[in-house]
């Protein structure tokens, strides 16, 4: 579609352009480009500052139904929280009826429930109060994919940990205490990184800056790693695996690690592209290794 402007037009590109003519394509669904194979223009781009003459040709693409990141995060995290508790309280139809509403006799099972629940409550609160999202929305089909992943794995893990025939860790109290220390250390670390990343960005902005270590020792890992939030997340789940000694948890940790490595590598690459002076010592997710 072509638009003529008199050089003084200060309207942002997508918000007003199509919304008036085609109301079913709300702005979050629109991808507007100057070149069909190029990158989408950003919401903040202003007509006057684009490399176009007095007549501009834009290419429109429908991104499909969109859903906000916040909604997706809240749904995908609330699921595991509630599902795990259902298994913990041995709600009927999961285990043989004689175990309905009983509690496990192993104290590690209670501890595991507290840790798992704490983890997801933390995630929910961070979604509401800490994170500053670059994009407002993502494609609608992602919520089905993501929820299947989180909810499915939560049910699979919770089934075994809260099972009447659960076997506590081989090395007993020692193993569980060590695991708890690792878990808590990494939870605090992960939270510290989230706060540090939030503070890079003034409220409502979408600026991108290189993160650096702050006074908080948990952020000193920024010296060696681009995405320490993923590093700490891996650590938390390794702790939880050690605590529960449950193969499905190990599997979940592995799959999560693979996905986070993919994300960390992409983030690391985009840092390197965007910032000439990016610290060379940093690795994407594991210091010196990955």
């Amino acid at each position: 579609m072509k638009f003529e402007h008199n050089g003084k037009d200060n309207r942002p590109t997508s918000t007003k352009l199509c919304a008036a003519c085609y109301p079913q394509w709300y702005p979050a669904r629109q991808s507007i480009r100057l070149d069909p194979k190029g990158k989408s223009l950003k919401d903040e781009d202003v007509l006057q500052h684009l490399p176009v003459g007095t007549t501009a040709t834009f290419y429109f693409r429908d991104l499909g139904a969109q859903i906000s990141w916040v909604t997706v995060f809240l749904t995908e995290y609330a699921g595991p929280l509630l599902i795990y508790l259902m298994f913990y309280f041995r709600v009927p139809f999961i285990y043989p009826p004689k175990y309905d509403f009983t509690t496990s006799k192993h104290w590690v099972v209670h501890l595991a429930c507290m840790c798992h629940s704490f983890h997801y409550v933390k995630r929910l609160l961070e979604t509401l109060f800490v994170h500053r999202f670059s994009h407002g929305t993502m494609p609608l089909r992602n919520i089905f994919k993501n929820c299947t992943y989180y909810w499915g794995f939560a049910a699979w893990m919770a089934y075994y940990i809260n099972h009447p025939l659960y076997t506590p860790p081989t090395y007993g109290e020692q193993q569980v205490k060590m695991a708890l220390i690792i878990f808590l250390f990494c939870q605090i670390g992960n939270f510290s990184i989230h706060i540090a990343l939030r503070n890079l960005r003034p409220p409502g902005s979408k600026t991108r800056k290189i993160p650096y270590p702050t006074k908080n020792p948990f952020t000193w890992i920024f010296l060696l790693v681009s995405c320490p939030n993923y590093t700490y997340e891996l650590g938390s789940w390794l702790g939880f695996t050690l605590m529960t000694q449950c193969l499905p948890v190990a599997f979940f940790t592995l799959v999560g690690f693979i996905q986070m490595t993919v994300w960390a590598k992409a983030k690391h690459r985009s840092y390197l592209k965007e910032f000439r002076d990016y610290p060379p010592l940093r690795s994407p997710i594991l210091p010196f290794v990955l």
Partner: protein
Amino acid sequence: MASGEEDGAVEEKETNNKKKRTKSAIATAWLTFYNIAMTAGWLVLALAMARYYLQKGTHKGVYRSIARTLKFFQTFAVLEVGHCAIGIVRTSVIVTGVQVCSRIFMVWFITNSIRQVQNQESVILFLVVWTVTEITRYSFYTFKLLNHLPYFIKWARYNLFIVMYPLGVIGELMTIYAALPYVRRSGMYSLRLPNKYNVSFDYYYFLIIVMLSYIPLFPQLYFHMLRQRRRVLHGEVIVEKDE
């Protein structure tokens, strides 16, 4: 000086091009050998099965007689996933991976381990289908690599599958279904609670899930082949849906 730098750069480019050409010469040589070997292998299997049936007049015992050869050549096909992964064959790693996995699964985890199904008619069905399909496919690749592809091989490759794929799926599904009672009774490949890894696995239910997975997977592979067919035989340009 500028010209000195340029010469250096040109030389580097030439060595790089030379490296690429030697690499692809080695790749072509290896692939040609591989495809000839696999064509020969499946031909041997076809002849062995035909000979057994003509001599004994029954299909019972055919599987046992060719089991070792079948396991060898079918397992060797795992290399094809590697070929895609390193890029010497331009096919999706996932598509190849799924196909090879289903073959390995049938051979090693169904017919090899569950003796009672080895004389089922459904086994003969999928063995015949696999043999026809593989001989066609590997000879197609061989001739293509040798730059001398007879039309009838191309025709066979892109038309026989229309009948072979569904027949093969029927044979495989019927075999797995026939295996279910034996799996349940023997409890094979299964892990029960309690155990120190806090996990359980029931091969019986796993097989049921495998059978159900044919429902989404088979149409995708089938339509993928149909699209290829249209493109190769009729030169149609297929516009893929954007993601």
